[in-house]
């Protein structure tokens, strides 16, 4: 008979595991992490590298297997079918029951399918989970061509993966250029050109209309421009949505995700939600109500751990930052750079003549306050931009001190002088 409080975490992704680790550091509560997907925490961001042969599955695990026992964190591989909040009981598939004192829901995302005709055919899939990766191996075993719907982060990773197996890829992109719902047009165009240079066919301003198949298997698709494309694989990467299907019928309030307050608590005491599956009732200014990003999942895990251990903390993320990689171009962003800037935001864009390096800086045209930066192909120091955003530096300061923020390896070419003179020229031109 244990008197220690039992914290149960559903989901062993970065959100749930970060919460578990932090709770363990500051308390000796009993912690159980339940997952249906995998026996151990693995880095979802690296799924693509397993397919490409850069790493093996075991390399994806951030912690060696002894870590969990050594830190007294119990792992349970099971699927939670039902949560009975009144009795604080979880009903697992197979009949087992597990009681909890505090519950953290960290069930992550599932791919979004938009209800296309034929989307349940074999050969149509998204890429989020370990099972999706296994399915992809099966679906691409003898794949003469593939179509990917959706020009975003998962889409470009899928394209890169398939490219390593010499599978011809066509991507249907709703916007004018790649990821242009997030990137300003010049950045998006640079990315589109780079992706195309690898032999990937991009069809901009094109959407998926219909999926055709025979005997339950995909054979071709039809685009919004009335083109029919034969394909053996159709990758769906138009976004993800919170994995909350299993909560249907429970008393936990959901909308598109699990609704949480500032402290990441759901409508019920002792039940919290973090990571991709959470939907903030009142998101921080400028942030989305659902954040499906590795970093924010980790941060929510850090935050909820304190609340669970008796020190309530609101989820108050600092300056926005994110990163990605589009084939060979690394992307980092600090602060806020809007895809379609309004009146209160102006952009300065610089691109290297090789087309593989660029920066876009967003600033307030009235005060010249630095708002944010997109960096492509040039590594930037998080700490420096974080400080500059906190100190509310202006555009000229950032550009003249850009050297300090460089994080490229030693001996790399520097571009700060060129960037600064390009900026000066721009300013002169815009004032004539």
């Amino acid at each position: 008979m244990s008197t220690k409080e039992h914290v149960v975490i559903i989901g062993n992704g970065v959100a749930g595991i970060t919460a578990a680790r932090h709770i363990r550091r500051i308390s000796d509560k009993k912690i159980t992490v339940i997952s249906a997907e995998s026996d151990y925490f693995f880095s979802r961001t690296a799924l693509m590298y397993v397919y490409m042969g850069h790493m093996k599955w075991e390399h994806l695990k951030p912690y060696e297997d002894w870590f969990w026992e050594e830190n007294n964190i119990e792992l349970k591989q099971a699927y939670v079918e039902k949560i009975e909040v009144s009795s604080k009981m979880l009903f697992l598939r197979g009949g087992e029951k597990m009681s909890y004192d505090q519950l953290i829901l960290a069930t992550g995302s599932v791919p979004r399918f938009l209800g296309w005709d034929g989307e349940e055919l074999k050969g149509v899939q998204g890429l989020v989970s370990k099972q999706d990766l296994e399915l992809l191996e099966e679906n691409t075993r003898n794949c003469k061509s593939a179509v990917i719907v959706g020009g975003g982060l998962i889409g470009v990773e899928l394209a890169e993966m398939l490219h390593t197996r010499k599978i011809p890829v066509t991507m249907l992109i709703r916007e004018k250029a790649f990821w242009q719902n997030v990137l300003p047009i010049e950045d998006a165009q640079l990315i589109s050109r780079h992706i195309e240079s690898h032999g990937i066919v991009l069809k901009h301003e094109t959407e998926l209309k219909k999926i055709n198949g025979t005997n339950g298997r995909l054979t071709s698709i039809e685009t919004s421009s009335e083109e029919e494309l034969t394909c053996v694989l159709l990758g769906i990467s138009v976004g993800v949505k919170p994995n909350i299907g299993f909560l249907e019928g429970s008393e936990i309030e959901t909308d598109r995700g699990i609704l949480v307050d500032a402290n990441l608590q759901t409508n019920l005491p002792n039940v919290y939600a973090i990571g991709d599956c959470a939907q903030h009732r009142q998101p921080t200014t400028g942030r989305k109500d659902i954040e499906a990003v590795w970093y924010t999942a980790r941060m929510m895990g850090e935050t909820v751990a304190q609340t669970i251990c008796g020190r309530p903390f609101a989820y108050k993320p600092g300056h926005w930052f994110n990163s990605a990689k589009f084939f060979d171009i690394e992307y980092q962003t600090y602060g806020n750079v809007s895809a379609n800037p309004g009146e209160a935001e102006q952009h300065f864009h610089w691109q290297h003549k090789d087309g593989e390096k660029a920066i876009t800086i967003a600033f307030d045209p009235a005060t010249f306050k630095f708002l944010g930066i997109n960096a492509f192909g040039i590594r930037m120091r998080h700490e420096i931009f974080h400080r500059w955003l906190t100190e509310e530096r202006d555009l000229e300061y950032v550009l003249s001190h850009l050297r300090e923020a460089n994080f490229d390896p030693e001996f790399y070419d520097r571009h700060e002088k060129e960037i600064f003179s390009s900026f000066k020229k721009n300013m002169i031109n815009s004032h004539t």
Partner: protein
Amino acid sequence: MSLFGEPPATLSTTQKVATGIGWTGVFILVLALFNLQLPSVFLYSAIGLIGLGVIIFANDLYLGKSAGVKNDGIWFRSMTARGGVAWGTGIILTLFYIVLYWFPQYLGYNPDGANSGLIALFDPLSRLISGHAASQWFVYGTLYTLAILAFGYKFLLKYRHNKYEVLRTWSVMFFQLGFAFLIPEILMRLNQPYFNPVNIWPLNYDLFAGYKLSEFFSGGNIGLLMLFFGIASIFVITPILTYFYGKRWYCSWVCGCGGLAETAGDSYRHLSDKSRATWKFERYIIHTVLVLVVVMTIAVVYSFLNENPDRFWLDKNVFLLGSAAFLVLLFGLIWLFKRHRLAKDAKKGAIISLSIVLAIIAAFYFSGMTYGYLLRQWYGFLIGAAFSGVIGVGFYPIFGNRVWCRFGCPMAAVLGMQQRLFSKFRITTNGGQCISCGNCSTYCEMGIDVRAYAQKGENIVRSSCVGCGICSAVCPRGVLKLENGSLDGRINSDAVLLGNDVDLLDLIQQQKKATRKN
């Protein structure tokens, strides 16, 4: 004709042809073993074919593709994923080393007359450079240098987008060709002692051996200069350069072992064991070898002074006392200023090691005997040949490219201590940007779990880090940067990840400090 959708596990036709060309070159060398007395054109063809094979292979693999990370299929291919080809290669390499070190007569080595076999094939080249007939070491040196140059070319192509890797590779190619291969041979031509200026004691365990010291002292001023340079290299130049740049100045830019590891061994760097258990073993074994080489060196110098009692101003017992005093002083300084950097078991290990060495020195002193020659023989056999050569290179395809460097090299142990205790070098992690993908740890040849640091926002300041820069190169999010900076705060075990609420981060940092073990 490959099917679409096949994982990149097989070589292209061009790569297969290139492999064939390379093996043809090797075949010529094997042919020479049968005492066929092949003219020198066969030697140059063999070298040329091996080089050409590697170049064509590399061109097909890396050129014509956009510059960037090139690790596709590494865990699918037999050669790089411990498949049959890898095992075969490893066995052949190991056998070659065994024959080279312990059965050179089968290669045709004849110290009493004309060479035969493979070694005779290399006579023309050896005479060209040094004026002397070849030996098994000349054959080894030539093939070693060829490997570094040819595979260096391959590496340059693979990482042509990364200036750090490019410069570093040119550096090891230069030091191998110029300093490790040509200069010692040219010195022989000039009737000077054989000397490789970049093979530094304790890696070069023979620097103070009796026969070598005799050579230096009968070599006039040049001989003395060599000895002096050898001593200055380890006691003056090394600590200074390691202070400024970390141990990478040697292990990744100069050393021949490192040179082969980074070029020919590049295909195997990901095979290093990343487990905590292996790291614990590593710390013990590498420092044991250091203790052995220190004891052995003191023994041989004592023997040398003992055999030449009136030639030198240094009395053999004064030397013993001086060595003991030096070690005690070194230990004392570290204990005084840096013991907070030593883990509990490291402190214990240091005290025990010092005690053992001092006890042995005392035994030398009171008995007047050191068995210097015998110790040197055994060290040469076990560590110099078996560990460094046979295991060190023979096991590349199975255990990775830095087995010697990580588990055995006493120079690495010394440099590592300097790096961890007082170097400006570190690998900075970029705030909160790490996505825990694991590429860095997978490709770290020294088996460092780089990800463990990056995902905590901690700098990497590890004694085993040779600064190859590959972790930074394969990181897809620009999280790692090798740099030299202030000693203050370089080791930040209680780091927190940028991005969250600053008050929360402060609290987390306090909690980390409070629960810090030892």
